[in-house]
């Protein structure tokens, strides 16, 4: 594999985190235009931990994920009473607020004769943990996909559990969920927190993969894409948003002849899908169909034995 392919694959992996983050909120019926804020917070926090405090990367990822999760829970609690458009706009406003704050944050420390830390609009340079340890791109990609697999397994288990049902209930009809005895306030905040943690992990990895981050990267387009991935790939299973990422970053990025027209193709794809498959390629119906198909296959196999 050449570096280009590895970079594309790594990007798919890292963007998948924010896609899963937005997906989780879509399950609960909330359209967040602000998951990029938690991706950004995770990136800055993790970068600060490894580049400024010189701690290992797992500490950076942990701090980034926890900070993003905590902030997300606070924002979730504040926006609890909002729904629909009002919720979406408040998440967007918060994310822009975070981005604009990062534009003016200027905190640097001297590390081995060099100033390291967030420098406002110039970004946060010198997050070189990966290079200082001579990690290859492939090794870092494996780290990305290892963590992604972990998050995915947690989400898939969650979907089979009561928690997953509760999240889908909130998305289906939150008043009815409340009538069934679900403490909707608690579960909304929990969903916001988990989504924040997932985005934070992605951001932490991103900061170390690119070695520098700037506030501009965490603008609203990242959040819009994150949302679109779930809507393209489908809301029936956590694999849905990953398919969405693969289609956009993998296919559209790779197909060079539509370079420059990529956003037009992407936008059109989203529009067409929303009209014909409002809950994406892998929606609940198709997931059910696939499951029975698999169940029948494995049943037939065990019969033959």
């Amino acid at each position, binding site marked *: 594999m050449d570096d280009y392919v590895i970079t594309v694959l790594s990007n798919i992996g890292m963007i998948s985190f924010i896609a899963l983050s937005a997906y989780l909120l879509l399950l609960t019926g909330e359209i967040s235009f602000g998951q990029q804020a938690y991706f950004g917070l995770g990136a800055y926090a993790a970068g600060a931990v490894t580049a400024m405090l010189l701690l290992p990367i797992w500490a950076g990822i942990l701090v980034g994920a926890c900070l993003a999760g905590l902030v997300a829970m606070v924002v979730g609690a504040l926006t609890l009473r909002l729904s629909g458009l009002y919720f979406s706009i408040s998440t967007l406003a918060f994310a822009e607020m975070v981005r604009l704050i990062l534009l003016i944050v200027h905190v640097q420390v001297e590390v081995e004769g060099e100033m390291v830390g967030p420098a406002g609009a110039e970004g946060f340079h010198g997050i070189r943990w990966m290079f200082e340890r001579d990690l290859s791109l492939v090794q870092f990609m494996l780290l990305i996909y290892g963590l992604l697999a972990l998050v995915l397994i947690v989400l898939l288990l969650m979907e089979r559990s*009561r928690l997953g049902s509760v999240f889908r209930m909130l998305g*289906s009809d939150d008043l*009815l969920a409340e009538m*069934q005895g679900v403490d909707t306030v608690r579960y909304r905040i929990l969903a916001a927190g988990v989504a924040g943690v997932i985005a934070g992990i992605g951001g932490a990895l991103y900061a170390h993969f690119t070695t520098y981050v700037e506030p501009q990267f965490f603008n609203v387009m990242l959040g819009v894409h994150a949302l679109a991935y779930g809507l393209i790939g489908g809301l029936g299973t956590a694999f849905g948003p990953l398919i969405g990422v693969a289609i956009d970053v993998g296919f559209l990025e790779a197909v060079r002849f539509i370079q420059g027209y990529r956003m037009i193709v992407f936008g059109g794809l989203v529009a067409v899908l929303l009209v014909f498959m409002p809950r994406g390629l892998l929606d609940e119906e198709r997931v059910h169909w696939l499951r029975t198909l698999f169940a029948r296959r494995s049943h037939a196999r065990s019969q033959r034995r």
Partner: protein
Amino acid sequence: MLDVRGLHISYGGVRAVQGVSLEVSTGEIVSIIGPNGAGKTSILNAIAGIRPPDRGEILLDGRAIGGLPAHAVVARGVMQVPEGRLIFGTLSVEENLRVGAHQRGGFILRSRDRSGLRRLFPALADKLDRPAASLSGGEAQMLALARGLESEPRLLLLDEPSLGLSPKLTEEVFELIRRLRDRGLTVLLVEQNVRQTLALADRGYVLESGRITLHGAAAELLSDERLVSSYLGVSVGAPSHRVPNR
């Protein structure tokens, strides 16, 4: 078991319920009947904690539950099966049922639940893994009822269970409610379907424009001339000579 006193509910200045008092004793089927917009659903929503009343007391076993959030009311054994918005379409039938089961501390359907389901709701038992959105209207109504029962409530609030059902299905649902009462369930039933409802219920309250205009034993109400002439006469079909010619 349930004691509602002087309930007042208004929506943006419009008074929907004005001083309603009613009682439900353990093991009874009590019905609230009345035309559209009389305030029947508002009363159920107030009891279930969906919308706090403006004034009035709601006591469950002598303890005030008025103003508690809905999930806290459910935790006290009161389950509402709402009208219209019935099921979680994106969940499977079984997941819908589990939602109810969780209320009494479980998540997986027990074998007792499954056999009960097969007995009471045979149509659902075969469709457990189907997405609930694929059910017919009647099946969805059955699922909502089954999910409500899965939580093993002490008091079941039923809002228009016959809505959108064929006469045959309505009869099945009502027969089911009767059997559940015989097993010890207490039911507060809101209906427009007056004759069948009063045939099922032990006692009834007639609600008109937010006030209770009549109440008593269901059999008495059914033979009450005021009710027959003012309301029943229109609803269940008066003798043919009183129907105006078209």
